[in-house]
C-alpha cells in the first residue's frame, strides 16, 4: 500500500477536513484547469491518446460548461456535497479514476481514490502529475486521498466505513465482492456494471469511407472492445448483403493497416465464441477474417452479451426499424452509436418503446468520450445531497 496524497504513511492517519467545499468551488475549478494545461502542454503525455482526451475534457471551457449545466438543471434546488466519496476504479481503463475524482470534487466532496498497484508508464505519469499539481492547492490536497493498493479487503473495509458514497467502476464480479463490505447506513452507492454497446447503421444514409472506418476503429478497438462503451455489435437498417460485405471487407482492410497483433488466446477465444453461438443458434453465419470475426445473427434476440469475448468479435443483425432495437434492449446495453439516423427519430423511438436499456446515444467516433452523464446517472448530481426548503 502506498499513499500518494496527502503526506501520510498509513490509512489510520486519515483525517477529514471539518468544512466542505462548495459545488464548483473556485479552487477546484482552477486546479482542474491547471491539471488540464499541464497535461496538454507537456510532450510526455502526447503519446497516450487517453491522456490527451482526459486533458481535453478537463479544459477550463468544458468545466465552465459543466458548471452552467449543473446550475441550470438544478436552479430550483439547494445542493450540498454528500461528504466523503470512496472511488474504486478499474485496473486497466487508467483514466476513469480521474474523471470520477474530478466530478466528485466539483460537487464539493472530499475523495478517497483506490488506484491499482499495477504499474505502467501512462498511469505512473498521470499520478505523478496529479500529485505535483494538487500540492499547490492546499484545500484540495488535504481533501484528496490517493492510495495505491492491490485489493486488500482490510483496506477496503476501513475506507468503506469512512465514506458517504462509494463509487464502484465495474466489473460485475468486483461490484458483487465490494458490496459484501458494509458502508454506513446513511451512505449511498454508485455502481457501474459491465455493459455492452452497439452501432446502428442506416446503410442508405452512410458512406463507408476512410473516415467512417477510422471512427469505427476508434470506437471499437481503443480498449480492444473491452470497455463498456466499445462497439461490439452492428445493427443494420436498409442493408443488403452486398453492402454488408463491402463494409466488412473495407473495415477488415483498414484494421490490417493498423498492424494490431492479437494474442493466440484472443484468436482461440473468438473461434470458441463463434462456434458456441453457432451451436446455440442454428442457421446463423460466421466468418473469420484474421483480426476480426463476424457473427451474422438472424434475429436481434440472439445477441449474446455473455459470449462476447472482445478483441475483434462483431455481431451483426438486420433490424426493421430503430424501434425494434430499443424494444429489444435490456439493462446491460449502454451506448448506442448511430450512423445515418436523425435525432428526432431516436427520441421518438425511445418515447414509444420505453426501453429497458441504453443510457447513451452518440455519433460514430464518440463512443469513448466520457461524459458526466453516464450509465443513466448525472454523476455530479448523484454525488450531491438535496436540501428541500419547504416553508
Amino acid at each position, binding site marked *: 500500500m502506498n499513499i500518494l496524497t496527502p503526506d501520510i504513511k498509513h490509512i489510520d492517519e486519515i483525517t477529514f477536513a471539518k468544512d466542505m467545499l462548495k459545488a464548483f468551488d473556485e479552487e477546484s475549478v482552477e486546479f482542474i484547469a491547471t491539471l488540464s494545461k499541464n497535461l496538454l502542454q507537456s510532450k510526455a503525455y502526447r503519446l497516450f491518446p487517453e491522456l490527451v482526451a482526459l486533458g481535453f475534457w478537463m479544459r477550463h471551457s468544458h468545466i465552465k460548461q459543466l458548471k452552467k449545466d449543473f446550475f441550470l438543471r438544478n436552479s430550483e434546488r439547494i445542493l450540498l456535497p454528500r461528504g466523503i466519496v470512496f472511488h474504486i476504479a478499474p485496473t486497466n481503463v487508467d483514466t476513469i479514476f480521474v474523471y470520477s475524482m474530478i466530478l466528485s470534487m466539483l460537487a464539493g466532496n472530499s475523495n478517497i481514490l483506490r488506484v491499482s498497484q499495477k504499474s505502467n508508464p501512462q498511469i505512473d505519469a498521470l499520478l505523478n502529475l496529479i500529485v505535483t499539481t494538487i500540492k499547490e492547492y492546499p484545500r484540495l490536497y488535504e481533501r484528496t486521498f490517493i492510495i495505491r493498493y492491490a*485489493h486488500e479487503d482490510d483496506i477496503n473495509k476501513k475506507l468503506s466505513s469512512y465514506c458517504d458514497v462509494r463509487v464502484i467502476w465495474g466489473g460485475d464480479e468486483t461490484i458483487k465482492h465490494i458490496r459484501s463490505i458494509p458502508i454506513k447506513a446513511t451512505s449511498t452507492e454508485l455502481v457501474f456494471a459491465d455493459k455492452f454497446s452497439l452501432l446502428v447503421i442506416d446503410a442508405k444514409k452512410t458512406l463507408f469511407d476512410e473516415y467512417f472506418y477510422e471512427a469505427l476503429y476508434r470506437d471499437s478497438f481503443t480498449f480492444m472492445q473491452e470497455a463498456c462503451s466499445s462497439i461490439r455489435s452492428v445493427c443494420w437498417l436498409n442493408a443488403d448483403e452486398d453492402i454488408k460485405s463491402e463494409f466488412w471487407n473495407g473495415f477488415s482492410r483498414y484494421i490490417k493497416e493498423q498492424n494490431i497483433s492479437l494474442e*493466440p488466446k484472443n484468436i482461440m477465444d473468438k*473461434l470458441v465464441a463463434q462456434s*458456441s453461438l*453457432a451451436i446455440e443458434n442454428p442457421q446463423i453465419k460466421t466468418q473469420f477474417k*484474421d483480426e476480426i470475426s463476424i457473427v451474422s445473427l438472424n434475429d436481434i434476440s440472439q445477441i449474446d452479451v455473455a459470449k462476447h469475448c472482445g478483441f475483434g468479435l462483431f455481431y451483426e443483425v438486420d433490424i426493421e426499424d430503430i424501434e425494434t432495437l430499443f424494444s429489444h434492449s435490456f439493462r446491460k446495453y449502454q451506448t448506442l452509436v448511430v450512423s445515418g439516423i436523425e435525432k428526432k427519430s431516436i427520441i421518438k423511438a425511445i418515447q414509444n418503446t420505453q426501453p429497458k436499456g441504453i443510457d447513451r446515444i452518440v455519433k460514430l467516433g464518440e463512443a469513448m468520450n466520457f461524459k458526466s452523464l453516464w450509465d443513466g446517472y448525472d454523476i455530479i448530481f448523484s454525488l450531491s445531497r438535496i436540501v428541500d426548503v419547504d416553508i
Partner: protein
Amino acid sequence: MIEDIFSLAPYSLKKEEKSAFLLKELKYLTRLHVRDCKSYKNILEAFGYIDKEYQKLEDFFAMPVRLFKEYDISSSSKIFKTLVSSGTTSSKVSKIYLDAQTAQLQTKALVKIMQDFLGKKRLPMLLVESKSIIKNSKMFSARAAGVLGVSNFGRKHTYILDDDMKLNRAALEEFLSRYENEPILIFGFTFMVWKYFFKAIERDNLSIDLSQATLFHSGGWKKLQDEAVSNELFKKSFKNLTSLEKIHNFYGMVEQVGSIFVECEEGHLHTPNFADIIIRDTQTLEPLGFNAQGFIELISTVARSYAGHVLLSEDIGEVLGEDDCACGRMGKYFRVIGRVASAEVRGCSDTYEEKQ
C-alpha cells in the same frame, strides 16, 4: 475401411498413401457427424463448410477442443462409456461420449502404437500411481482411462505409490528383485513420475537399476516447466541416477484417446498412420509448413462416436519433418512447445481479479 489400417505397421504409410487414406476417412466422418450431430452441423453451416469440396486434409473444419467442455457433443445413440478430463486448471471438464466401436478402435490404436515400441510380449509393469485411481464407474477420469489403457501392455501390475503419493519402497524393491535382468515397463503421468518417483529415489538415495526398463509418460510439461524441468533434463536425470535410457514421452488428449503421439529414440513425437498433425498460424489459422510454430490441430480417424476427428487444440507446436526421421518411422514428426498463454486482462471488468 478403418479396420484395414490396423493390419499395417503403425508408422508405415508414406505421405501420399497416408493423406489419401485420411482424406477418405475424414470425408466419411464429416458426412456422418453432419448427419448425426446437430451441434457439428450447426457449426459447419455457420462457417460455410457444409457444401465444401474437401481436396486436402487442411480443408476440414478444426473444432476448437474447448467446445467439449461447454457442450455435449455426440453422434451416437449407443453410448456406453463417458470419459471426463481431470480438469486440473479450469473448473469445467470435457465430456467424451464413446460407443463400443470407438472404444474398441481406441484400444486397437493404442496396441498398435505401443507394440511398435515394446514388442508384442506383455512386460511386468510398474505403475507410478496409487491403486485407488482405478475405480470402476461409467464416468472415467482421463487419468484412470489412461492408466487402464496402458495397463493392457503389461502384466503383474504393481502400483508403487500409496494414497498419499508416497513411494512404496518395499513394493518397488520386491518388484525389481523379482524381475532382475528382465525387460520391464513403467508408466505414469509426467509430473508424478518426476515428483513422486524420481525425486523420492533421489532424496532417499536409493540404489536402483532401471537399465532394463522402458518408461512411458504423458500428461504435459506445464507443472514441470514451472520447476524448470525440461524433457532433456528429465531424461538425463533418470539416466544418471537409475541407468534408465528408454524413455518415451507421449502427447495426446482425452478428446482423442488411443490416438497418441509417442516420442521416438530421436526425441520426436510421431504421427501414426491413422492420425495426423497440422500446425496453424495463431493469427490467420492458415496451415503452416515445417519448423513454424502455431496451434496444433489433431486429426484422428479413431474418434467416431463424436465429432472429434479434426480438433484445434490450445497447444502450440511445430512440425519438424515428414517421412524422414532418423528413427525410420514414416509420417510427420513434431514437437509440442506449450500451452497458449493467457492474454493480459484489459478493460473495465477486472478491478478485483488482479489479486488472484
